[in-house]
Structure formats: structure tokens, C-alpha cells
């Protein structure tokens, strides 16, 4: 089948209205046709809106538990710390990406940047795992910030992480340093570099009333900030 004929199948595919053989050919074409991927995303959204035009009676009360029971039975024994939806090659950035999605500071444009792997953040697997564990904790919550590109996640015990996207490289021989100020002098809370998505586990607890700061410092970090903060995130008592 010619490519043009395959392009034409997008609407029918979005409606699940292809014969099985047609659907298989379309899927093979879709995998390498960006135009169809874009078009399918749009048409599928319209198609699935049709689901809402139906009456929505309640399913029987036990359907929920049936689904959860079966899922539990199928559940892998080991919960992966890294989300499975990112290929192993980019896994080092995966948790940060997951964090950005979870914290609502994900941007579609990021995915394209993340394809260029050398531009992604360079963080240790240990840091990534700390972030993953933090996000998975039921007592973790997000502290709203005034910036659409910054989020702070904290837990009831004060374990916290800062997630920033589109953070430029600090420059040669420089590093970013996070600080937690809680009534006294800011205490150093970790060094990090720039990147499309940066998730920094903080080495100091963040409690209500504290402020998380980020400054640019000489490589290796310092014991007290030497420049005005580039980022200031207060964890307000009322938040």
C-alpha cells in the first residue's frame, strides 16, 4: 500500500474501524511517520471525547476491586525504582523526567531536548533513586512555587528535593549549590549542574518556614553562599 493510502487510514484507526490486517499495516507505517503520529494524536483525542457523550451509569461496586485484585496478582515482585517508560539508555534522566511530570512542570518541548542525550542531566544513580523514593512516599507533597519551572517536593519528615527544568549550565569551574535556610545561616544542601530537568535531593531537611535557595559557586561548593540566590523557594507555613 502506498504511503498516501496509509496516511488516509488515520481517522479510521483512531476510531478502531480498520480490519485487523489494515490496522497492522497502519501501525507499521505509524512507527516511522511523524505526520501520522501527530495527526493520530489529534484525531484520537476527538474520538475519545465521544466516550463522554454516553450515559455514565455506575458499574457494579466490585468492578474496582476485581481490577485491583487482578493487577495485584500480576504485579512484578520487584518494584522498579526507575519508571519503565524510559529506555535504559536515558534512564539516568528518567526519574527526573518522572518527577517533572509528577510535579506538573513537564513541558512537551523537553522530550525533544532529552532525545539529545548529551544535553541531559548528569546525576548519579543514587541521587535518582533518592528522588524516586521521595516521590513514591505517600506523605510527599508539592510546595507550590511562583515559578512554572521549579517545584519543591517535601515529605512529613522534611526529606525534600528540588526539581528545576531548563537550568542552563553554570559555566566552567562553577557549580550550582542548594541551601536550606531555617531561621539561621543557610546550610549547604547539595551541588548540582544544569540540565533540561534537574532533580536535586536536598541534604538538609526542609520544614515549614524554611527557605530553599540556589546560588552559583566555585566548583566543589562553599560552606556559605558567596553570591545572591538565583532561586528562592519559601516553604511557607500556610502552604
Amino acid at each position, binding site marked *: 500500500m502506498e504511503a498516501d493510502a496509509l496516511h488516509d487510514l488515520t481517522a479510521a484507526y483512531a476510531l478502531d474501524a480498520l480490519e485487523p490486517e489494515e490496522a497492522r499495516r497502519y501501525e507499521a507505517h505509524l512507527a516511522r511517520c511523524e505526520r501520522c503520529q501527530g495527526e493520530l494524536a489529534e484525531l484520537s483525542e476527538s474520538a475519545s471525547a465521544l466516550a463522554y457523550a454516553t*450515559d455514565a451509569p455506575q458499574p457494579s461496586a466490585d468492578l474496582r476491586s476485581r481490577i485491583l485484585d487482578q493487577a495485584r496478582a500480576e504485579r512484578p515482585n520487584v518494584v522498579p525504582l526507575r519508571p519503565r517508560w524510559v529506555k535504559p539508555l536515558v534512564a539516568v534522566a528518567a526519574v527526573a523526567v518522572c518527577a517533572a511530570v509528577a510535579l506538573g512542570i513537564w513541558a512537551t518541548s523537553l522530550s525533544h531536548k532529552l532525545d539529545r542525550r548529551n544535553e541531559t542531566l548528569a546525576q548519579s544513580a543514587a541521587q535518582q533513586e533518592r528522588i524516586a523514593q521521595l516521590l513514591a512516599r505517600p506523605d510527599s507533597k508539592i510546595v507550590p512555587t511562583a515559578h512554572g519551572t521549579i517545584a519543591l517536593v517535601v515529605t512529613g519528615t522534611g526529606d525534600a528535593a528540588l526539581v528545576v527544568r531548563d537550568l542552563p549550565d553554570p559555566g566552567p569551574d562553577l557549580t550550582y549549590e542548594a541551601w536550606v535556610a531555617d531561621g539561621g545561616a543557610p546550610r549547604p544542601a547539595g551541588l548540582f549542574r544544569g540540565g533540561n530537568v534537574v532533580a536535586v535531593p536536598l541534604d538538609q531537611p526542609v520544614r515549614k518556614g524554611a527557605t530553599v535557595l540556589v546560588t552559583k559557586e566555585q566548583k566543589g561548593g562553599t560552606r556559605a553562599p558567596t553570591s545572591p540566590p538565583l532561586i528562592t523557594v519559601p516553604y511557607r507555613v500556610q502552604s
Partner: protein
Amino acid sequence: MGKTAGLMPRSFAHLSDEAVVAMLARSDESALAELYDRFGRPAYGLALRILRDEKLAEDAVQEGFLAAWRNADRFIPERGRASTWLLTLVHRRAVDLVRREDRRRAEPLRETFEPTPSESAEDDAWLRFERERVQSALKKLPDQQREALELAYYGGFTQSELAERLGEPVGTIKSRMFTGLARLRELLAEPRPGEAAWKPTPYTT
């Protein structure tokens, strides 16, 4: 919109649908519960419309949600919304079932299901709002486009079957489906209240 029932922690309340799916990809069972609470009813409404049988509709919903559970790592946020992805999985199961059971009918659904109130008045109001919004968009489509969309999406007919049934070339059916969906997209694109576009702000203070 989701209500969080029972023993599940409320920690998902602030998360986007896409973030819930990201948690699902980590085999987080409470993410599955949250997803069900958000989309179980529209998913069931859709499956029931297609299958016209409560038992089969529940089977389709169950299979769709379990497909989401198994394949959450394949969800790509930049290729569409999580709600679209999930409802597509349920739709596919329902259509497979209706074809297998040969229960397809072309006539519109006669019996209407009384929308049973749930514990959450918010959910009820939201579903009703969405239903009226999509139904009114559908009504604005030319009859032939609406017919093609309804027979395909709710009826489970393939484009070849539709061409035969309606006595039209397949090309005509394809074009009605495409134009119908594209027009529906425009009609639904009018922003909902409180859905202002998100704008990034500089990170320096």
C-alpha cells in the same frame, strides 16, 4: 475530578492524569485505583454503549484497565493525554468483544440508562457537563459525518463494513470520518472555564 475512595492515600489528588500514569508505570497499585476513580465511569459508559450488556461491558473495562497496568511504560506523554490513552484501550477491548460476540447493531441505543448518582456530586456534575458538551458538538456535525463516527465508534463497524452498509465507496467513508473527527476537535477546542493556557515564567528571582 477523581474521588479517592477507601483506604487509598489522597496523595494523588494534586497529580495530573499523566503523572498518575507515570506512577502506574512504576507498578504503583494506588495509581491504578486513582485512574479507575477518575475514568471508570466514562469507560464503563462507553463499553456499555458499544456492548449493550452490563457483564460484557465490565469485562471490557477490566481488560482495558489491566492493559493500562501492563503497558503504562508505553504511554508517551507528548503523544496525547492520559485520558485519551486509557479510553482508547477500553474502546479497543469493547470493539474486539462486540465483534467477537457479533452483537453489533446500527440502530441507536433505545434503552437509556438512568444516570445513577455516585457518592460524589462533583463527579456527577462534571460527567454531565462533559456529556452535554460533547453531545452538543456532535449535533453540530453534518448528518453523514455524525453517522460515520457513531457507527464506527459506538457500533464497532469497520470502514469497509460501513461502506457496504451505506452503499458508498470506502474513500467516502474515510473522508467522512476524517472530516467529522477534525470538525469535532474544533468544536470541542473552545476553552473550558478555568483552562487558561499555562505559561512558563523565568526561574530567576
